[in-house]
């Protein structure tokens, strides 16, 4: 018998309802793409030699087409980007890493100019582009637009706590550079050229109160989330059940007409994203708790904005007032498909400590009912069954509620439990090397994976689909001997299709990513055509 029986089973219920992560998930944030948090990863580092570290990656600016010139995808200098850590279970941040960005043009904000006109008296004319020639690891002289940022650690309440700057361990500077996006291969020479250019902006940092250094990188990366996005939101325009006998088997012996695993189903594969990545000693994050940390990311704007009727590069607007949160992301997919449309913007402005207000969305989730409406008749026709309702009927869905808001005893539950939505990671669970990771995470026998934190290669979509339709209502093969274990949360009679292998057909695994910080791969180039 495994020592993790409840852990593994309960972990399956964490993902809740899922289709896409958090890309343009709410009406208001879709108006503010530079502040739109899309994915949040938090895991024990599996890079060789970094066993005592935790990696945190907050992705922003969804659906970036690599060719999105001439301005590409700078983060918002008016925004405040934050990664919050609760290490004592009170659902309030104990540590907050704040990132603020500054944009400048070359030549003291005048921009690079070219002499245009008669040779004897040319006019110095500013160019309209962000680079005027090749850029490399050895020279950024042709770069016309420079993004820099600061990192501040706030201990305690993020607005009233003690704020201390994070410094470059090499020289003590508190200003860091975000590399220019991957404009294309002509500008950077090659993918390797861009990788070398960007790599120089990965910094070793001294974190206040932390005896060992960490690392930080902010920059464009290849989108790592995999989802059959367009088909999903077109009323699930495919049969979301594995069509092979097992994922990738290619035998067509699964559910008749069901979707099979194919990378072409991942429509985000040709997109880039902007990552804010930290790697920090676990000892510096876990505080005085039991080693489990909760994490989430937010973005905020100052409450008031007045547009400058005579806008300039330096001052297109004036912002003032209190920081006002507009984006929030912890567990994947929550605001995307759990929270109802009237409350999505409210969720983005909320904090974990107040999450009880959203409980009904978990106890009585709407997505299973939607799937039932879409697929009840086809499923019965295909299987020759007379199932009355595909959705689980154990209300309230306490299996989902407990898992969603508390973490799991024995795995990723904090010593003090305050019901709240965040990603929870047990820093004491040894990381699994990339080659040995299961994309089903804990459900696949890999305790270092989702929902014990989240790694880039965890297939949170498929896990979640199965759970929301009632996987927890069936005995699960848990532990070393795979003994079927009844969780006692609900019964098979509660979930007619709880044992069906739901999937969106978009595969992902750890080997799709780098195995070193910041893990997400070099972004796709904006040119030449066909390179994306």
């Amino acid at each position, binding site marked *: 018998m495994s*020592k*993790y*029986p*409840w*852990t593994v089973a*309960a972990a399956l219920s964490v993902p809740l309802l899922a289709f896409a992560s958090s890309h343009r998930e709410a009406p208001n944030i879709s108006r503010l793409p530079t502040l739109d948090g899309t994915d949040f990863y938090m895991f024990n580092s599996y890079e060789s030699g970094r066993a005592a570290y935790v990696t945190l990656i907050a992705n922003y600016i969804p659906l970036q087409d690599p060719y999105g010139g001439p301005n590409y995808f700078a983060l918002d200098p008016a925004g405040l980007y934050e990664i919050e850590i609760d290490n004592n279970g009170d659902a309030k941040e104990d540590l907050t890493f704040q990132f603020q960005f500054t944009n400048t043009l070359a030549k003291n904000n005048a921009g690079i100019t070219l002499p245009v006109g008669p040779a004897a008296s040319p006019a110095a004319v500013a160019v309209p582009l962000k680079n005027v020639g090749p850029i490399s690891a050895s020279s950024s002289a042709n770069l016309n637009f420079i993004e820099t940022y600061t990192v501040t650690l706030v201990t305690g309440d993020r*607005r*009233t706590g003690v704020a201390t700057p994070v410094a470059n361990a090499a020289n003590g500077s508190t200003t860091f550079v975000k590399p220019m996006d991957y404009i294309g291969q002509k500008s950077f020479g090659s993918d390797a050229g861009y990788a070398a250019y960007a790599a120089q902006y990965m910094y070793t940092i001294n974190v206040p109160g932390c005896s060992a250094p960490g690392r930080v990188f902010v920059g464009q990366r290849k989108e790592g989330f995999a989802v059959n996005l367009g088909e999903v939101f077109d009323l699930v325009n495919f049969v979301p059940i594995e069509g092979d006998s097992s994922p990738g088997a290619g035998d067509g012996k699964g559910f008749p007409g069901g979707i099979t695993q194919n990378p072409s189903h991942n429509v985000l594969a040709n997109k880039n994203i902007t990552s804010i990545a930290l790697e920090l000693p676990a000892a510096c994050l876990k505080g005085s708790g*039991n*080693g489990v940390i909760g994490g989430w990311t937010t973005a905020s704007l*100052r*409450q*008031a904005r*007045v547009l*400058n*009727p*005579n806008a300039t590069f330096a001052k297109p607007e*004036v912002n*003032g*007032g*209190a*920081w*006002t949160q507009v984006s929030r992301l912890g567990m994947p997919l929550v605001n995307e498909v759990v929270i109802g449309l009237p409350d999505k913007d409210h969720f983005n402005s909320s904090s974990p400590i107040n999450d*009880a*207000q*959203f*409980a*009904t969305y978990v*106890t*009585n989730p709407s997505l299973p009912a939607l799937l039932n409406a879409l697929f009840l008749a086809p499923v019965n026709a295909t299987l020759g069954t007379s199932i009355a309702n595909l959705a689980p009927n154990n*209300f*309230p869905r*306490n*299996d989902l*509620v*407990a*898992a969603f*808001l*508390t973490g*799991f*005893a*024995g*795995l990723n539950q904090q010593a003090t*439990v305050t*019901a709240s939505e965040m990603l929870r990671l*047990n820093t*004491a669970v040894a990381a699994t090397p990339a080659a040995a990771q299961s994309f089903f995470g804990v459900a696949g026998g890999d305790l270092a994976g989702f929902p014990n934190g989240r790694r880039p290669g965890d297939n949170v979509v498929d896990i979640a689909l199965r759970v929301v339709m009632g996987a927890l209502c069936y005995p699960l093969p848990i532990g070393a001997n795979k003994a079927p274990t009844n*969780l*006692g*949360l609900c019964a098979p009679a509660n979930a007619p299709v709880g044992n069906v292998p739901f999937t969106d057909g978009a595969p992902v695994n750890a080997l799709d990513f780098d195995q070193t910080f910041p893990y997400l791969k070099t972004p796709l180039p904006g040119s030449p055509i066909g390179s994306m």
Partner: protein
Amino acid sequence: MFYPSVKWRMAAGAMLAAAVVGCNGGGGGSPAMTTPTPPATQQSTDFSSLVYMIFGEPANSQPVSLDNLTIVYDVNDDPTDFNGLLM
């Protein structure tokens, strides 16, 4: 103590779930059953005053709530002095 007994874990999970539902007033966990909040007093302010009030708040203060706030916009009191808003 990361790995307590199965029974304890299951009991804790059920209790927590019940607590979450219960804190929303039971009855299936409807947030509508939370302790009623007295209706806020309806406030009225002119747009110009509101803008200056919000701008005057420091970054780390609490955002000014716009709930129950009626904003009166007077075209003759338009805060068009952009430079005056520079903080």
